[in-house]
């Protein structure tokens, strides 16, 4: 069952189309992420759901309630703000109880529910503290407890972790994900960090310039990007741009100074981008079914723990990113190597053409 349905949402500021014809279906109990670069309209869309921003056109339905005429404070939603927006003149208990009291819950009941909510975020016993007396991570949890204690149908989160340092941030990612699974509330999470999105989400909508480019599970986005933008934004990849052709009866890409097998047939003459992930490429270890091969010069090598990232320049000066297992042994910088991969491990993107036959090949 769907929790939020957004259809044909549009919002512009002057000449800027902040949200451009967005249609989304967010399921019940799902951790759903809006991912995209700065300025792509994530915040505008999220605030529109909350009612803090008005759409020029389009509909937002939560459950079976059209939100068009519902004021912010009557929407069945909670929100966690990027700067948390805790109330500095109230202590932790008062902050958390605020939404309960505003919704007319009795003093006694709200006291009990506040205590439960603080326990849930591992802040039990800190209710009497002033907000100012908490660490960044603790303040984060107060904001979560405050938003969740009223049991909203959907929780909206606008980059709530971006103010934290890396270590705390990764710890909070795990906590947030666990919390969501435990309470089962639908989360709509905004971030511009693709690692964060991949780590936490059930499904992700990748946004670009106000539009949704693709909606899918992290795996779908990574393995089968629908556009060059998604391929580029989600994970590292080698993107070979060229024109489709047929050589020896096989679909081939010609461009980037080489010709490479395409994993599916594309009408000859059409613009196509081949996406090859760094870990799909082998170095000097071509197997018989590796039907794509390129020679290149290793220009740099970066140690990354379990793998080594090689930068390999082809003869036509295309720079490949290649990840080889550290166990595979070092490849000296300056050596010439043969890169190879299976065309079925790559992915062809033809802009604006949903590639159904391509998916079938996978």
């Amino acid at each position, binding site marked *: 069952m769907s929790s939020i349905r957004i259809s044909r949402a549009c919002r512009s500021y002057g000449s800027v189309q902040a949200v451009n014809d967005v249609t989304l279906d967010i399921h019940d109990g799902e951790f759903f992420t809006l991912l995209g670069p700065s300025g792509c309209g994530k915040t505008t869309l999220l605030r529109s759901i909350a009612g803090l921003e008005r759409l020029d056109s389009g509909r937002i339905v939560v459950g079976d309630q059209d939100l068009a005429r519902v004021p*912010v404070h009557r929407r069945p*939603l*909670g929100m966690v703000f990027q700067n948390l927006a805790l109330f500095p003149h109230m202590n932790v208990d008062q902050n958390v109880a*605020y*939404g309960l009291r*505003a919704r007319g819950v009795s003093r006694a009941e709200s006291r009990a529910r506040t205590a439960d909510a603080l326990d849930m975020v591992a802040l039990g016993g800190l209710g009497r503290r002033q907000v100012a007396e908490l660490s960044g991570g603790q*303040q984060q949890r107060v904001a979560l407890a*405050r*938003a969740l204690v009223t049991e909203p149908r959907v929780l909206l989160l606008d980059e709530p972790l971006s103010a934290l340092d890396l270590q705390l941030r990764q710890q909070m990612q795990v906590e947030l994900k666990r919390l969501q699974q435990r309470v089962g509330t639908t989360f709509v999470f905004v971030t511009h960090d693709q690692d964060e999105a991949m780590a936490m989400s059930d499904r992700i909508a990748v946004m670009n310039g106000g539009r949704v480019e693709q909606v899918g599970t992290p795996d779908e986005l990574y393995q089968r990007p629908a556009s060059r933008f998604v391929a580029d934004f989600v994970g590292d990849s080698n993107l070979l741009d060229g024109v489709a052709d047929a050589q020896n009866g096989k679909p081939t890409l010609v461009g980037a100074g080489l010709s490479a097998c395409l994993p599916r047939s594309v009408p000859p003459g059409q613009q196509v981008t081949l996406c090859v992930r760094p870990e799909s490429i082998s170095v000097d270890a071509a197997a018989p079914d590796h039907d794509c091969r390129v020679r290149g010069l290793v220009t740099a090598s970066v140690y990354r723990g379990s793998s080594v990232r090689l930068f390999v320049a082809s003869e036509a000066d295309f720079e490949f990113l290649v990840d080889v297992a550290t166990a595979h042994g070092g490849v000296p910088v300056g050596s010439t190597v043969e890169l190879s991969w299976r065309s079925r491990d790559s992915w062809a993107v033809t802009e604006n053409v949903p590639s159904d036959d391509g998916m079938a090949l996978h």
Partner: protein
Amino acid sequence: MLLKILGRGWLVASFGFLLAPILVVVGASFTSGSLLTFPPEGFSFRWYQEIVGDEKWMAGLTTSLNLAFVSALGSTAAATAAALGIRRLRRGGTATGFLLTLPLAVPKVAVGLALLGLVVAFALNGTMSGLMTAHLIITMPYAFVAVSAGVAQLDRFQEEASRTLGAGPVRTFVMVTLPQLAPGIAAAFLFSTIVSFQEVSVTLFLVGPGTNTLPVRMFSHILDSADPAVASISALVVIATYVLLALFVVVTRRREAAGRKGVAL
């Protein structure tokens, strides 16, 4: 080193310059003689006893306190409404705010004349209502500047958070906006009170026999008498004002310190 000494010297000189008149007045108020002189002749509380026992001064004080309280209440409320209203304007906010502070630039005598015309037109000359209206108008720009500074620092996200938590506009205003604005509102009230309490030049045009304020009485007193009563009153006013200001500064500092820690992540 030399620069540092020069700097210190400059600082001390500046403070001396600012404080000297006050010291002269306070010093002169303790004279045991019957003329306003500095240095004072001897030391006594004679003139303090004199003013406390004098019906004329006590009546003036009551009038001034009433006037200051009511007009400060009015101008603070009006200034708060104006500052919050301007915050909601899409455009023209800065210009409107500037317009509201413009009366500060008009010579007091001109304001007095203008208000006299107004007050006479409504047959309020010499009445307390006329004075209150006038003082409300005079103190409004000061209150507005103080509240605006507070409004500029309001955190919009807190108000939005309140709304997403189920609080309607009224509850949000009372529970979230007003508490944040409290220091600005207190400052507005304080400054309005002080300005109204000390105002002479405009008030001179508007007082009647029953509504003589303390400063106006002081002003007319020194026109035909050279006794130090005025110095004792001034000394008391100075001390009362400073105590109020000091209290205000201490309280807001404490709040601010707490607020800053709250913002830091």
